[in-house]
């Protein structure tokens, strides 16, 4: 990997402490180039390839690749403590839980919403209406 070129001395010639891992300029520029490339790819793909309902998954897949590049290189995750990485990833796990549970719940209430005869009708059947509202 490109970050192998460790500079062990600072500009003033003193050795770097062990927790100091500068990322090489080559790695930074390569990461940026890849990010720009993926941005162009995602625009071209979304605008010119008819993919219907898969489009969002392709877009999100490319976004995730970009996010990983930013995390691994710009956010120095490759050099960070595994515990810090675990903490950050756990944030996404809880966000996914939040998303998943809310989505399944809303799907559940859609049936009630569709079953409600009308707004006026719903008012005469308060239980159904409450289900539709929440």
């Amino acid at each position: 990997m490109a970050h192998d070129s460790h500079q062990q001395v600072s500009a003033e010639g003193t050795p770097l402490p062990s927790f100091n891992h500068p990322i090489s300029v080559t790695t930074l520029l390569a990461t940026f180039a890849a990010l720009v490339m993926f941005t162009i790819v995602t625009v071209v793909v979304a605008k010119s390839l008819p993919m219907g309902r898969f489009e969002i998954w392709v877009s999100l897949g490319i976004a995730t690749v970009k996010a990983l590049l930013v995390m691994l290189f710009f956010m120095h995750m490759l050099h960070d403590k595994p515990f810090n990485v675990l903490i950050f990833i756990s944030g996404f796990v809880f966000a996914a839980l939040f998303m998943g549970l809310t989505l399944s719940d809303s799907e559940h209430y859609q049936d009630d919403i569709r079953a409600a005869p009308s707004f006026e009708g719903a008012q005469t059947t308060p239980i159904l209406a409450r289900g539709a509202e929440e």
Partner: protein
Amino acid sequence: MATAEAASASEGHGSDGHGHDHDHGQFIAHHFTGPRQQYDSCKLGIWLFLVTEVLFFSGLFVAYTIYRYHHPEVFEEASKFLDTRLGALNTIVLLFSSLTMAWAVRAAQLEQRAVTTRSVLITIFCATVFLGVKAVEYSHKWGLGIFVAYFFKYDGAHHGDTNSYLTTLSIVPGICVVVCAALAGIGMATGKPLSGKFWGALALGLGGYFAGVGLGVGYEAVFASEGESHAEAGDHAAPAEHAEGDAHTEAEHEHESTEALVMDPSSDEARNLGLFFSIYYFMTGLHAFHIIAGVIALAWIMNRSIQGHFRADYFGPVDYVGLYWHLVDLIWIYLFPLLYLIG
């Protein structure tokens, strides 16, 4: 993993006693055993903060997902009002600012102070360019009557004056630039060159806002005809009567809107578009708010860099602000395809 290597390497060259042998350093708090422990503790703190940020934004992502899941057609319709090229331009500006931020961290680690200052300045400049382009996008929509749900009154005609919205948005950045320039002048005149240098650099950085506005306005002037066809595409979507008629139904029974939509999908497009734009404004607005907070944090870093505070064993603040900045970039990386690249 690279981290494990790093840990064993640290044992190797004997700096594990952390700083007791050399001077404790101006910015190492006394309750830490040394620079390394302070750095590790702060880093843990910033990662925890970033987790709260992810969860903070996730509420809006959940709102987006649920609304799109149930009403995909609204998103396809509404996305026509967003300019993909301006969005892509802003994405690249933000990615570039992430590059310069990562470069600033590297330079701070290597004690290249001038490079750190300059990289942070470029990051601030890119941040404000982003805000300037965003201001052009917002004012363009406001000029068309595209607001959040309750105030949504798009009918294919121009409602308000786009330029006056843009001017209003530009007042605060304008004042900030003028104040910074004045403080730079005062700093120079009173023999405080470091302070003068900082405020001058900040005025330059904040001036990026006007570069962004220029970019956006120039872009819209060149592609004006295209903008019109976008407006026409959405024309049939929102006849004026609907927007007016639905306005108070919505005010009175806000939560029934989903129900009414399922009952009669074709009659509520204006309201649906308004709901999409509520999500759009809150997601991009909260993101823009984070950019502004980031600019303030970056200004602090730039000042400390000018003062020469950072050393090979004390570069933490640059790193922490950098992590925050990259997170703001990460969020935009998802917002861009989700909002601009539909249909």
